[in-house]
């Protein structure tokens, strides 16, 4: 497995996309820190990057990479190696390189301009979201044989989680405004990793505005150790479940 990870990793480095992605994050984060003196505002701007750019890059890059290395995978499968090992190796290599790109690109400026609790949770959210969307991309890739279709599915995932789901949530809150919605919306938020990451960050950045009746409830929940464990666990489930579904499909698939 280590060997597979190594080869895939070299392959990813050779395309130079990861280096470009790292440089982009690095330059934009540095630029934000230089433009704005308030570190909290920088974290807020970075939040937009984490919630939109990171998932998009992760999911598109992973899907394209999977199809580009289709021949390599086929070659590997001709060897006496377990399919699971190949798949897990592919996954780990891609996930690690994307996570490293994010950690270096955002982590280094954060470290230079002062490490804060909000900065750390931003890093955490970014890495988890990268993992979630890499999993989803693998799922999209194994669902179909056609590259264009797979990219379509991947983009649909991204659209769904960053836009469509929120639209649905807003409609839901609007339609049932007369009812106590706190617990239900909490459950609905858990069904979207992007929303969950956003709420975790929100509670650190915009605490005072959230202090309405609803806000107080969320703050109490996500501020408690149970809430932190719960949200972390849910995010990890979002990494693991799509990954295992993809793994199952890949193991049985007629390539």
């Amino acid at each position: 497995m280590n060997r597979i990870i190594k080869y895939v990793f070299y392959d990813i480095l050779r395309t130079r996309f990861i280096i470009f992605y790292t440089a982009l994050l690095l330059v934009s984060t540095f630029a934000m820190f230089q433009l704005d003196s308030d570190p909290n505002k920088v974290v807020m701007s970075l939040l937009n990057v984490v919630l939109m750019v990171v998932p998009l890059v992760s999911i598109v890059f992973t899907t394209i990479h999977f199809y580009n290395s289709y021949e390599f995978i086929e070659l590997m499968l001709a060897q006496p190696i377990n399919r699971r090992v190949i798949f897990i190796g592919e996954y780990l290599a891609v996930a690690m390189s994307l996570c490293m790109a994010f950690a270096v690109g955002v982590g280094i400026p954060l470290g230079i301009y002062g490490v804060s609790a909000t900065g750390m949770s931003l890093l955490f959210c970014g890495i988890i979201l990268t993992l979630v969307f890499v999993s989803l991309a693998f799922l999209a890739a194994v669902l179909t044989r056609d590259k264009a279709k797979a990219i379509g599915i991947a983009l649909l995932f991204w659209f769904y989680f960053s836009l469509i789901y929120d639209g649905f949530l807003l409609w839901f809150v609007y339609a049932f405004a007369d009812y106590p919605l706190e617990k239900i919306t909490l459950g609905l938020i858990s069904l979207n990793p992007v929303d969950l990451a956003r709420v975790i960050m929100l509670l650190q950045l915009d605490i005072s505005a959230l202090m309405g009746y609803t806000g107080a409830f969320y703050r109490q929940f996500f501020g408690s150790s149970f809430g932190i464990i719960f949200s972390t666990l849910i995010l990890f489930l979002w990494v693991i479940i799509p990954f295992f579904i993809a793994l199952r499909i890949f193991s049985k698939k007629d390539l």
Partner: protein
Amino acid sequence: MKSGHQCMKALKIIFLSCFVAITAYGSTITVSKQGKIKSIKQAISQAKPGDTLYITSGTYKEGNIIIEKSLTLIGENFPVLDGDHKVEIFTIHAHYVTISGLKFINTGIASINDLAAIKVLDSKWLRITNNRFVNTFFAIHFSNSSHSWIVGNQLQSDAKAEHQIGNGIHLWKCDHITVDNNIVKGHRDGIYFEFVTNSLITGNYSKGNMRYGLHFMFSHNNEYRNNTFVENGAGVAVMYTTGVKMINNTFEHNWGSSAYGLLLKDIRDSFVSGNRFLQNSVGILMEGSSRIQFDNNTFSENGYAIKLQASCDDNNFKRNNFSSNTFDLATNGSLVLNSVNGNYWDKYEGYDLNKDSVGDIPHHPVSMYSMVVEQMPAAVLLWRSFLVLLMDKAEKAIPVMTPQNLKDESPAMKPYDLNTKSQ
């Protein structure tokens, strides 16, 4: 020799306090646990108006002490007056009384009477200076009194619930009072005024009170300068008053579902200038208020900087700095009767072609999503999502929900240099 020294010291204080100048020839009585006169009550009964009572350190448990003569009471090393959780300590009903350097502890708690460490009734020309109050129900309670100074006192209580505790400095129907440099912590309302007029409130520090740091009603023409209100249960609430001047105060970290930096209800013809509103759930909430001038204030890191209800009119916001607030301005109607021209908004996205440091296109400070949250509090969950960002941008381009006319015609490109601390 010793009594001569004490006499000199007492005389010096008498000399300095011009209030009691007309009785400067009064004699001095020393109250001491070791001396001839052991109790304050005894000393008061012996004293003539104009005398000075010099109270040496020790603990005095004498029940309720009533002062009905013009006396000066001065404590040495903060002698302790203990109410034993039962009684009111001083009840003053005389002009020209000075209370200084005493420590009051453990007054009684009652739900019918307002038991206080110092209660003043129908009196004038009093000085309550440099005293300490620990675990008092009400600390300083004035009613129907005037021309007095409450300066440099330290008040500290640690009640668990609102009904177990009274107000720190409680003034009812007073006139011409100076409240200066007091520190009030852990009471119900730090400073409470009702029907108090023409008074000056400066340099006080009100922190961690159960309800409001400052609370007043029907208290016209008072001036509040350089006070600090921090971490009070519901911030500061002021009501039904005209002619308020609030200058260079700090309202900080009043957090909670019903906490406000400053709540203005039915306030008219007033000035709010040079104040700093930092990290409050709501910086200013305004309801039914008119003709107030807001200038040179700083709003930073608040949830809502200003919640301006549609029942307010003719208010003018000018030269204020808004930065890092979640929502700068929120309102609940579309009728606009207030002016918000010439402020600095960090969310302004316009440009300045002629370089006069005034933005060329108007700024709409009301974000659409603040209107949505106003109607559906649960929707706050979607704040900062991509969807909301898109909706806000669309609303900025073509206003539908937000009041179209509520805009800053001349937004500043750079924050104003408001050096409020040095003024």
